[in-house]
């Protein structure tokens, strides 16, 4: 089996989805966390000048979702059929949209009034509508594709828990029973449960 080396900063950020997939897959990997002052030297030697990167057998992959999908595929967590894989991909992409919307409209907004207004809109209008769509896409057993845990379920859990610390209260899953089940399925996966207990506490 190849040796995997994941490099990112000392935070969850865009690397955490990869770490969660490694955990669910039970695959060993080296979890390298750079200090900010180590980054300038590495940056030109990365494929696109960004982290995370995954190194294995002399190859380097970048782009967190591409890395996550690659590891998930090897572990059978990317969807069992081509259509299931497409379902997994569309949910992952939807979660990226949800995260990007938060980042660009709220996190990076400098005007405090606009920021508060956008946050209100996000929590009261956008998220409930998006969760309503996602609840329909998830089965009542709590899976976005097929009847087993996939990368889509992990992506949902990861993005929601990524955004929550920046809000006054965690996003509510009331009225979205399938999504509550998705979260249960993710957090009760033995590999993920172990990782959630052991992972370093970091500001982001």
């Amino acid at each position: 089996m190849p040796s995997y080396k994941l490099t990112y900063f000392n935070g969850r950020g865009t690397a955490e989805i990869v770490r969660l997939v490694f955990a669910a897959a039970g695959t060993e990997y080296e979890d390298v966390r750079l200090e900010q002052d180590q980054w300038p030297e590495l940056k030109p030697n990365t494929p696109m000048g960004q982290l995370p990167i995954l190194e294995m057998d002399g190859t380097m992959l970048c782009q967190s979702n591409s890395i996550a999908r690659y590891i998930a595929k090897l572990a059978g967590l990317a969807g069992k059929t081509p259509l299931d894989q497409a379902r997994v991909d569309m949910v992952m992409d939807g979660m990226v949209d949800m995260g990007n919307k938060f980042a660009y409209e709220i996190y990076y907004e400098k005007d405090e009034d606009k920021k508060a207004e956008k946050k209100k809109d996000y929590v009261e209008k956008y998220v409930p509508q998006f969760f309503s769509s996602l609840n329909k896409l998830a089965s009542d057993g709590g899976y976005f594709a097929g009847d087993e845990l996939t990368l889509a379920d992990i992506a949902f859990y990861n993005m929601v828990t990524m955004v929550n610390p920046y809000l006054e209260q965690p996003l509510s899953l009331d009225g979205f029973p399938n999504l509550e089940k998705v979260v249960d399925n993710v957090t009760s996966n033995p590999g993920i449960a172990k990782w959630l207990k052991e992972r370093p506490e970091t500001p982001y």
Partner: protein
Amino acid sequence: MAPRYRMIYFNLRARAEPTRLLFAAAGLQYEDVRIRRDTEWPALKPNTPMGQVPVLEVDGVTICQSNAIARYVAKETGLAGKTNLEQAQVDMLVDGMGDLRGKQAAIRKASEDKKDQCKEELAAFAPNFLRRYEELSGPHAGHLVGDSLTWADLEFYDVMTKVLMYLPGIIDNLPKLAKVMDTVPANKGVADWLAKRPETPH
């Protein structure tokens, strides 16, 4: 018999075009449905998985998110990459191209007084980005990954066609990338599609 695949989008290239190029390159039949934003979209929107188009309907399932659709069609047409690793490399190159696509689209979307600033941002971003892509491009000239056409080549062709409108000489000194711009339209299915596809603003 109706085609197995039905893609619904507006009458634009935009986010649906890479998938149309995939279908064309493989000669795979599909229904290319183009809806009107004003009269048809409001009724369709609540019946889509995430309130967005494009969507792809296949075997009673509806898939949304343009890259998820494209990756599925790429796999169906054998254009996703031949091994798990090649597929990951295709995926990462397409993901990265999203940034280039975004900077180029920002010009179009910007108000008149902001357009020049957006053009400058593209001009500042593109050279380094493309230099890296030239380095990432595999050893087989004309193909970003592996030795045959993949989704990554089609996506690159689609985005670069637009970028070249603003920065015409930008890949003149990047021979592997320049070769991709030749290889893609040399595919017969793509060439036929490029000749007959509807003219649209973007």
